[in-house]
């Protein structure tokens, strides 16, 4: 028996009648033919369903009349109680409801009277929630024996749907699930054919599982006809639902993972410090004019602050800046008054004086005071370099890549 509390969801699913029809259709899709009823209390719904009355009943005051038309058999009482009720002259629930509740409790015990009160909504009827099992294991009997592996995909799809529902309820995904194909019993019982499906990452995407299964079934040899299909899955990994951005950032739902997921994945393998974004800082010393910042792609819309055009910190007095900067300036030899880097360098532009920085000279790891004259230089091999001269000599600091 399956009890669904739907009062809170009526609006979302378009009213009681539509939701009821959807539930029945959903069950039919899974291959079940439910005997269902809709009532304001769980017990009333149960009795109506057993009685085969599937007209929706949405109001509490309709209940005595609707329940009254049911036979006593829906209560599933013991034969002794049935006989006593018959001796009272009660033939239907209507007769039972007419009896004084206090006398009924004295004669048949408090259980039945309390049930009647619960069914009519006079007493609260709290139910414990359904807890999904820790492991998923489902078995499906095929309507006919299947000889061709590729024909199993259709039936397996039903199990995959069930698995996806189980995973969605648990908020998880699996990276492996195991299909078992049991063969027909005969003179020679063969062991079940086991097919383990592996996925690149945890998933609960039924389409994706079906695709992988289809690929594998295509190449699977079957020793005998299949009668049962089983599907097992264990240890689901937490898999958060994915919210789509309203306008679709790019790729028009190409089915790829989001940028946030990419950043997480890269950080997981390469280390948090290895994946970062860049930002500029209003500073004149080249090493301090940029910053590593945390890569935090916004999943949906941009924040209001980032919608504003970023201030371009290009000082009009600043000279050209190279696209690549060396982590540590590299000392260059000087020959005949010219810096050398694979031959003498030709100075093309400069000097650009960059100096001062006494304010952080005392801090550890800070650049401190500098006094440098930067030049754009070209080497004999046509490399464009950014070099500077300081008290300590010539240094290569950047490459105009």
């Amino acid at each position: 028996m399956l009890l669904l509390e739907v009062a809170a969801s009526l609006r979302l699913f378009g009213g009681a009648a539509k939701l009821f029809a959807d539930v029945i259709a959903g069950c039919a899709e899974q291959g079940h033919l439910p005997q269902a009823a809709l009532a304001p209390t769980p017990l009333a719904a149960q009795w109506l369903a057993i009685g085969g009355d599937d007209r929706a009943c949405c109001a509490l005051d309709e209940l005595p009349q609707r329940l009254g038309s049911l036979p006593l058999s829906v209560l599933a009482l013991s034969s002794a109680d049935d006989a006593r009720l018959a001796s009272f002259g009660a033939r239907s629930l209507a007769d039972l409801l007419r009896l004084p509740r206090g006398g009924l409790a004295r004669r048949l015990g408090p259980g039945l009277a309390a049930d009647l009160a619960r069914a009519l909504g006079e007493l609260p009827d709290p139910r414990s929630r359904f807890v999904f099992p820790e492991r998923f294991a489902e078995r499906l009997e095929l309507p006919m024996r299947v000889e061709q592996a590729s024909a199993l995909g259709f039936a397996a799809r039903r199990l995959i749907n069930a698995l996806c529902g189980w995973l969605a309820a648990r908020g998880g995904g699996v990276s492996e699930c195991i299909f078992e194909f049991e063969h027909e019993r005969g003179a020679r019982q063969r062991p079940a054919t086991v097919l383990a499906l592996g996925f690149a990452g945890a998933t609960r995407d039924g389409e994706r599982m079906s695709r992988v299964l289809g690929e594998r079934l295509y190449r699977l040899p079957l020793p005998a006809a299949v009668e049962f299909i089983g599907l097992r899955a264990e240890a689901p990994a937490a898999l958060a639902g994915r919210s789509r951005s309203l306008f679709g950032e790019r790729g028009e739902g190409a089915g790829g993972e989001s940028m946030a997921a990419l950043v997480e994945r890269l950080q997981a393998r390469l280390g948090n410090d290895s994946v970062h974004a860049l930002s500029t800082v209003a500073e004149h010393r080249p090493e301090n004019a940029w910053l590593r910042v945390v890569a935090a792609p916004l999943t949906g819309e941009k924040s209001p602050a980032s919608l504003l055009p970023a201030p371009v910190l290009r000082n009009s007095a600043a000279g050209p800046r190279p696209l690549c900067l060396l982590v540590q300036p590299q000392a260059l030899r000087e020959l005949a008054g010219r810096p050398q880097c694979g031959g003498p360098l030709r100075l093309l532009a400069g000097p650009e004086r960059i100096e001062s920085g006494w304010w952080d000279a005392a801090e550890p790891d800070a650049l401190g005071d500098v006094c440098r004259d930067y030049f754009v230089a070209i080497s004999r091999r046509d490399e464009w370099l950014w070099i500077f001269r300081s008290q300590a000599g010539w240094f290569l600091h950047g490459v105009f890549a």
Partner: protein
Amino acid sequence: MSSSTTLAQILERPDVWRGDALAGAALPGVPTGFADLDRELPGGGWPRGGLTELLPLRRGVGELSLLLPALARLSRDELAWLVCIAPPHLLYAPALQAGGVDLSRLLVASAPGRDAAWACERSLAADGVGAIVVWLPEVQAASLRRLQLAAEASQALLFVFRPAACASQPSPAPLRLTLEGEGEQLIVHLLKRRGSAQSLPLPIAVQRPLRLRHALACPASAVSAARSLSRSAIA
């Protein structure tokens, strides 16, 4: 239907090209920002969903400046993400910003060895990535082939930098360019492209620091001036 119509239909397919003509591309390319280069590339620009192999002869010939206009366009106009993987030097943010790249859409990943190709493949699979620039000095042909397949499944631009010595090796990349500096210009050789071969070198006027201000009037005097200034700083 005559057989000639069928032939014409076949020839219109983007994956069929005639030996004497430039191939069409399934997707229009991203304009490189250099009209001379656009004319020579199938699709009229850097190919989307294809691996572009760049083989610079030396560093500092303008290899990144060649990509900068397209990268700026993707990040600014198409709001696409740029991913740079395993750059050999620090990518200098002020210069990228001056080149028009939206830094809020740039991701830099330092990935040693074989992780670089892996990171590249993951980035290709992500939504919203417009271009990937990756340095793969020691990549195997097999992983290059994998990257090409992954690129075909996406719409991103994929630029792979490899040493110029690889020019003689076969490669699955549909577009291969060697880059060479010659004075102020960058000389591009189209080693391989879809369609007819192009053997003439293409001079491309990439952004060079000389075009800005600060032209040096007399280098020697500037050097001595710098030296005297440094000395005065010591004193």
